[in-house]
């Protein structure tokens, strides 16, 4: 590759200010929000910051011509290494495409560029009576494009569903260089649901350049309850009882004692530091229904030994409780130099034994583990606290993580609920999928990207035992190197 020529050609597309090529500046793009000891770090050859769809398409065509991998990236808040340039090449950073292009209340959608920050969208639409339902905890920083790539979740997914349920259409630059619009303001577009396939594909099938998101009407009434419990076990039993009772809250979140301590040290939001765990429950909908559900949930919490059930008295109090909950990961800095944030889902009835297992792991591996998670969805987020300079710590953290994922799968769960597979989790997919399952996914990948140059080395497993490897190869799954350009160009 003639580096100087390529740089000139990239600059001709996005301007000199849109290309990063200096190694000292590229270093900040070597990682995302995943722990580098776990997902690794890789330097892209170039970072480009396009401002238009046409520029993205032109950059993609150049990458194709030069046989270089393309890695799309938003704010870099991903937790699984999905936005790391695993094989170098060109990283396409979409943060300059950050305009809200249209808000259409009558047809309940907005069209945004991928670099729009999640919270900014709802901030813009809330006064008009609408919101964008997916609300990952990183919503003050993460981009809508990143939400699409990862099919992001968030507390309110319990009632409203994940990102995929709220994406109506996408403008996307395909690996072929073609720019297409999928979906649109009306459901049931004939043909394959390309929108649905692209959401959650972690930038391996295309680069999204515009997103048509569904806006949800603000509910008539909202109520937030805070219920402290003596133990994490009593709290998780209450969660199972609430779900089983046929009451569907908008959000049902749990924090354990360690998390509460971190959050209170950082924000003083009013969480009781002496509780073993707290549940944060939001109920919304028609006023009468909200009142009834709040009563029902209060009763269930009391039956399961809640020490009290407090109703947030004002919008400000609700905000403060939610702010602290969503900033809990950041607050962990009060407790630890490093943490490994795990993400797994179990069927909701399996929460009590799974949380007990987390406690056992904590003892077995001599690691403090904080739990702050979307209990109503069965989506666990154990934060394994460690110090990366302590000898052997990383190994224990990784072993605890593997044990946890294995346990969750045995209980009918899965290896990632909302953070994605990226680099971090790809070798765990064989816990849940057979070589034939993965081969079908690889067929999907091939249909979009036969050259395998979009976000290579992500999602698909690369390390296997010998026997597994043979089976996987026989089933036609691209394995280590198989997704690399050198093999196909």
């Amino acid at each position, binding site marked *: 590759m003639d580096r100087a020529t390529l740089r000139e050609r990239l600059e001709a597309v996005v301007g000199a200010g849109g290309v990063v090529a200096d190694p000292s500046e590229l270093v900040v793009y070597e990682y995302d929000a995943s722990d580098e000891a776990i997902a690794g770090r890789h330097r892209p050859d170039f970072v480009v910051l396009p401002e238009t769809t046409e520029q993205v398409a032109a950059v993609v065509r150049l990458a194709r011509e030069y046989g270089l991998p393309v890695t799309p990236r938003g704010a870099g808040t991903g937790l699984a290494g999905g936005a790391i340039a695993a094989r170098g090449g060109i990283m396409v950073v979409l943060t300059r495409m950050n305009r809200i292009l249209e808000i259409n209340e*009558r047809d309940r959608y907005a069209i945004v560029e991928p670099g729009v920050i999640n919270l900014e969208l709802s901030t813009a639409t809330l006064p008009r009576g609408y919101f964008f339902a997916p609300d990952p905890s990183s919503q003050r920083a993460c981009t809508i494009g990143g939400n699409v790539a990862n*099919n992001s979740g968030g507390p309110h997914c319990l009632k409203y569903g994940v990102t995929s349920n709220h994406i109506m259409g996408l403008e996307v630059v395909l690996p072929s260089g073609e720019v297409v619009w999928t979906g649109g303001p009306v459901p049931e577009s004939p043909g*394959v649901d390309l929108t649905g396939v692209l959401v959650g594909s972690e930038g391996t099938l295309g680069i999204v350049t515009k997103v048509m998101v569904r806006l949800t009407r603000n509910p008539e009434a909202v109520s937030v309850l805070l219920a402290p419990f003596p133990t994490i076990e009593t709290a998780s039993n209450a969660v199972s009882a609430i779900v*089983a009772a046929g009451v569907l809250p908008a959000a049902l979140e749990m924090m354990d004692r360690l998390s509460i301590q971190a959050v209170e040290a950082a924000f003083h939001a009013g969480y009781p530091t002496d509780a073993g765990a707290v549940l944060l429950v939001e109920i919304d909908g028609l006023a*009468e229904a909200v009142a009834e559900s709040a009563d029902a949930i209060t009763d269930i919490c009391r039956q399961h030994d809640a020490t009290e059930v407090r109703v947030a008295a004002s919008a400000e109090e609700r905000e403060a409780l939610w702010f602290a909950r969503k900033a809990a990961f950041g607050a962990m800095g009060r407790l630890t130099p490093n943490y490994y944030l795990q993400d797994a889902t179990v069927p909701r*009835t399996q929460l009590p034994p799974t949380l007990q297992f987390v406690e056992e792991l904590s003892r077995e591996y001599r690691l403090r583990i904080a739990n702050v998670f979307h209990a109503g969805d069965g989506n666990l987020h154990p934060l394994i606290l460690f110090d990366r300079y302590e000898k052997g710590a990383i190994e224990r953290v990784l072993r605890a993580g593997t044990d946890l994922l294995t346990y969750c799968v045995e209980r009918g769960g899965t290896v990632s609920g909302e953070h994605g597979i990226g680099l971090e989790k790809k070798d765990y997919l064989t816990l849940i999928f057979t070589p034939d399952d993965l081969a079908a996914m690889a067929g999907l990948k091939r249909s979009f990207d036969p050259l395998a140059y979009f976000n290579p080395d992500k999602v698909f497993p690369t390390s296997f035992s010998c026997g597994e490897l043979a089976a996987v190869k026989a089933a036609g799954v691209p394995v280590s190197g198989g997704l690399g350009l050198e093999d196909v160009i």
Partner: protein
Amino acid sequence: MDWGSRMSSDRLSTVRNLEALSDGVARRDPSAYPVDGVLPAVALAPATVEEVSACLAAADEAGLAVVPWGGGSHMALGNHVSAYDVALDLRALNAVVQHEPDDLTIAVQAGCTVAALDRHLANHGQILPIDVAQPERATIGGLLATGLAGPRRFGYGALRDLLIGITVVLPRGTVARGGGMVVKNVSGFDMMRLYYGSLGSLAVITQANFKVIPRPRAQRTVLARFSSLAAAARAAEAVRMSQLAPTAIVAVNEAAARQADLPAAAWSVGLRCEAPPVAVARQAERIAEAIGAEAAATEVIDHDGTEPLWQRINLALDAAPAEQTIGVRVGAAPSQLVTVAEAMIASLTALDLEPALTLDFGSGLAYVRTAGDPGVLLRAWDELARLGAHATLLTAPAAIKRSTEVFGREPQGFATMRALKAEFDPRGTLNRGRFIGNL
């Protein structure tokens, strides 16, 4: 795609070949499986996933064209079949595989009917909200393949949005799964969305996992009559923009009202309320208030009357094919729906056709049925196909289907759809020619 066609003697020997390879699989009378008036040479009814796999692998190997069947209620959807050797009846695969009531999840085999699933869930106070005209016939697999969803999509989303896991058999006989049994899952690609709505052109769905929801404990329907479409639309929009949260908003014209056995009116609007008992009466009252100024008459249908009423509306919206009749669905954003509906009415009345029109104001879909001579119906479809964001010929006589693309205009991204078909079904074994662009 041009898959070509084979000589009949060739077909006979390959079918014998298939019969040998699928030995032990139950047979059915092929004359019960017509598609576009074409009959298959053989009809197989596998009882296990292994048998589905064996049948498909054998057919694929022999180059035979397979049409998967559920209850057959929506076999009219799709382009005219270009070859049809084997009917694969999946109704024997009808078990509830796993139901975890306290997790609000269920796994069912594809051949389970909508009615059977609903009875099962009702015992546990749960639902999977599906609107179809023939619930005793329509199967879960068939609904997923067609990707059709009725008016409650507005309140609950489509089956697409409740689907959390899937098992399919690929044309070569491989069993492949996606997703799982948990409500939040980003492990691997979203294969559910790939197969949903792909009309069985990529794989045969054998099992689907869903998140279910608590069964609403109380229902009401506000049913109002209007003298004009404009007035009906203003009322529908007032409620759609409000916080009153109905689960469906549908308008029907006089002809469709006759099919749904509703009181005669130029336009009728039904608004469905599903909520806890403590809230539902007031919800219906407030909705009735909100539309009162526009409506000529308003009534509130009680809990027991609501389900049958919507069943009749589904009959108008999701009507079975009939002689000399076409059914067309035109999509238009809710704010554009009136303009598009007026254009549909104008096109059809200019051809002396009487349109029975059902408008799903929640989602932005207009359904029309009309009867006439084939030549006139083809002209009608040609005109309707130009309207809205997209248009689909849902049901039509075979003669009309043979000379048109039933999925209307080619969507963007079609090259990728073609690549998917080539990757998943390279020999064109499944539903040959029936999917969009004859894929």
